[in-house]
């Protein structure tokens, strides 16, 4: 094995004295599925006349569930448990010190830790293909399902590893979490899958029609690539944010390109205004979330300020490298893309610009609270509770008030309420009143933030004088 980490897991997981135990467990499980089905079929065939291929199709679905449990529950929980377990054992420093590249570490952990599971999954795929073909499922559909199983598994493994790199070591193995996630989100997949195997569904993507399962897998692979890049970044630069500035902007741009592919075919549909605003709102998700992923910490600001020329150091030097500037750049990418989309949808830009302007004021409040947390967190760690509380209040208070006073319009003062309100009335009605409370709400954080920037610059100047 070229990757030492895979070899390390090969040593610990595939010892002859334990390998046969896992083998027996797997064979017993497969045997159990087959025997139960055989007995069930033998009894049922007396009562109901079935097509000969139907029992095989039933077996195919059972092996798909088995495969899901292996790839969507056990593999991600194994992967996500590696770092917390090393931390608990106080062996994490050894992993960090290993002069392996980040890619070697990621591949080593994901493949190495799941060596046994992947062996079982490989054997399972044989049954999956055999029963699928005997159950009259086409090769093409089998490949699509297999691709979906693998892409979801890969995404969950990478995401789980990524989250474990910054989580508390006390969490240990996240098996229970993945089991709950599977029963919440994974199980509805099966009725959809059964329906899809009976009648293949296609979706439109730009100028093409592509199978639904391929489309879902493609989207998941896009996120897997970014999860991989995120892992690579955190294994290489442990104290950096998840996204670099360039990475965050590229993610936003590619996300919009990908997303727009699903909306573009409907540019001439009857309700294309609603479709357009739906795209704009969906495109806002990373605009809101990326600033947290690319967030520069207070320590990072101090590090950046080291590079400034001491004599001419000013608050502006820090500000132009700060989180709000990146967030505004991400917002501008969204704005530019949506304006281009507006043109492709042959819609007037004026209502959209009004909408984007109001959204920007909501965004300023969000950025203000986020940056306030960043610059004060090192001295007032509980500020996260305060800003968290304000954010929850900001999101839901106007909903509660609109319910209390039975006045729907009040909900537009919440960012969520505003998006819901506009999405159903665009382009006819773009409420402007939220601009005023938003501008008022972001004033105090902005003053505090700039005060803190100034303090950081003054501290840096004092340090420079001392040294």
């Amino acid at each position, binding site marked *: 094995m070229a990757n*030492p*980490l895979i*070899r*390390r897991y090969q*040593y*610990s997981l595939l010892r002859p004295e334990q390998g046969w135990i896992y083998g027996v467990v797997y064979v017993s499980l497969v045997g159990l599925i087959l025997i139960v089905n055989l007995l069930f079929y033998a009894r049922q065939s007396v009562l109901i006349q079935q097509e000969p291929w139907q029992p095989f199709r039933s077996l195919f679905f059972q092996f798909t569930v088995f495969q899901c449990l292996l790839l969507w529950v056990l593999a991600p929980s194994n992967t996500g448990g590696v770092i917390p377990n090393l931390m608990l*054992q*106080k*062996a994490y*420093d*050894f992993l*960090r*010190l*290993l*002069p*392996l*590249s980040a890619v070697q570490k990621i591949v080593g952990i994901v493949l190495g830790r799941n060596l046994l599971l992947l062996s079982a999954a490989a054997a399972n795929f044989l049954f999956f293909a055999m029963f699928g073909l005997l159950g009259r499922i086409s090769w093409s559909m089998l490949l699509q399902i297999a691709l979906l199983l693998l892409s979801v598994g890969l995404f969950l493994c990478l995401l789980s590893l990524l989250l474990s790199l910054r989580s508390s070591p006390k969490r240990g193995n996240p098996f229970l979490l993945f089991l709950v996630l599977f029963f919440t989100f994974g199980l509805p997949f099966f009725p959809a899958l059964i329906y899809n195997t009976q009648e293949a569904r296609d979706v439109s993507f730009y100028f093409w029609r592509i199978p639904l399962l391929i489309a879902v897998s493609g989207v998941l692979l896009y996120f897997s690539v970014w999860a991989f890049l995120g892992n690579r970044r955190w294994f*290489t630069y442990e*104290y950096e944010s998840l996204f670099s500035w360039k990475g965050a902007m590229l993610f936003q741009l590619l996300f919009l390109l990908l997303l727009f592919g699903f909306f573009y075919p409907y540019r001439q549909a009857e309700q294309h205004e609603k479709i357009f605003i739906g795209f704009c709102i969906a495109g806002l998700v990373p605009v809101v979330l990326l600033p947290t992923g690319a967030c520069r910490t207070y*320590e990072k600001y*101090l*590090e950046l300020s*080291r590079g400034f020329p001491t004599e001419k150091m000013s608050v502006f030097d820090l500000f132009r490298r700060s989180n709000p500037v990146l967030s505004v750049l991400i917002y501008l990418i969204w704005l530019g893309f949506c304006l281009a989309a507006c043109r492709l949808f042959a819609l007037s830009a004026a209502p959209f610009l009004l909408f984007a302007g109001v959204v920007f004021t909501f965004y300023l409040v969000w950025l203000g609270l986020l940056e306030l947390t960043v610059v004060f967190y*090192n*001295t007032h760690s509980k500020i996260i509770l305060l800003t968290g509380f304000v954010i929850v209040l900001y999101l839901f208070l106007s909903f509660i008030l609109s319910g209390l006073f039975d006045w729907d319009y009040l909900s537009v003062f919440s960012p969520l309420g505003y998006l819901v309100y506009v999405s159903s009335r665009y382009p006819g009605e773009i409420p402007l009143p939220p601009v005023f409370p938003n501008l008022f709400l972001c004033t105090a954080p902005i003053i505090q933030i700039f005060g803190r920037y100034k303090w950081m610059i003054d501290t840096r100047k004092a*340090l420079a004088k*001392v*040294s």
Partner: protein
Amino acid sequence: MQVLEAQRLRKEFGPLAAVQDVSFTIEQGQVVGLIGPNGAGKTTLLRMLAALLPPTDGTAAIMGMDLCRHPLEIRRRIGYLPDFFNLYNDLTLWECLDFTARAYSVPSDQIPRRIDTVLEYVNLTGKKHDLCRHLSRGMVQRMGLAVLMVHEPDLYLLDEPASGLDPIARINLRNILKRLADEKKTILISSHILHELSEFCTHIAIMDQGRIRYFGSVEQIRELCMPVRILRVRVLGDPQKVPAVLREFPNAAVKDICDTVIRLSVKGGLETAAQLNAFLVGHGVSVAELTEEKKDLEDLFLAISAKENVFS
């Protein structure tokens, strides 16, 4: 050859400056004892040097490579033993060393020989097929050193390697460290148990409140902090004559006399000791033996504390 050069290293954790403007250099073959009370910043300094913690300010170069720019390459060239650690509990000693050697790109054909050598070095050959989880604390510590040695690092960074060990395990560990020092390995070792360092350190750095207060060879620091040497002179004949003779020798005073051994405090270096010997012989005293009573690091540490009251 310079192995490590730290320049104004600084680490802040929120409002706390754990390491403040630390600068020093370590040459090849030096064994530097980093001593200081708990909370002095030793562990933070070592973790920064191991590229595990980014400095808030300042930088360091290890084998000429900048700590911030080449962390991966630096990790390849150093061996860092944390203060509290465990090995991979699900591996045997042999597997653990094989894995480490491969991760550090040791050529495959050299790995078995290298593993046998380091296991013999740390006296764990008989345990090589045991799981790491079955080792005692002392063995884990020795195995930790073996893990470092298997890739032959240019610089060893050892953080309190003897903490939590019983006396026998501590002696075993000290013997290994002495052997490494005799082989001219470059080592930076932190401890607040000074005795364990005194036998093999060539240099010491005394750290307090995040700053290096003193850095230099043991001799230099001894000269600086304890200019008076204690000499033990064994004479043939009546030792009570000696104090009268010594009244004519400047910078020497009798501390006490026990049987035929006289303890003297002498200001000055080794030349003064030689002059004293010649003086005594010249004045008819039969000197059978003249030795210097070596002070260990504990005495130096206490002397420095008393002198500057830095640890108050």
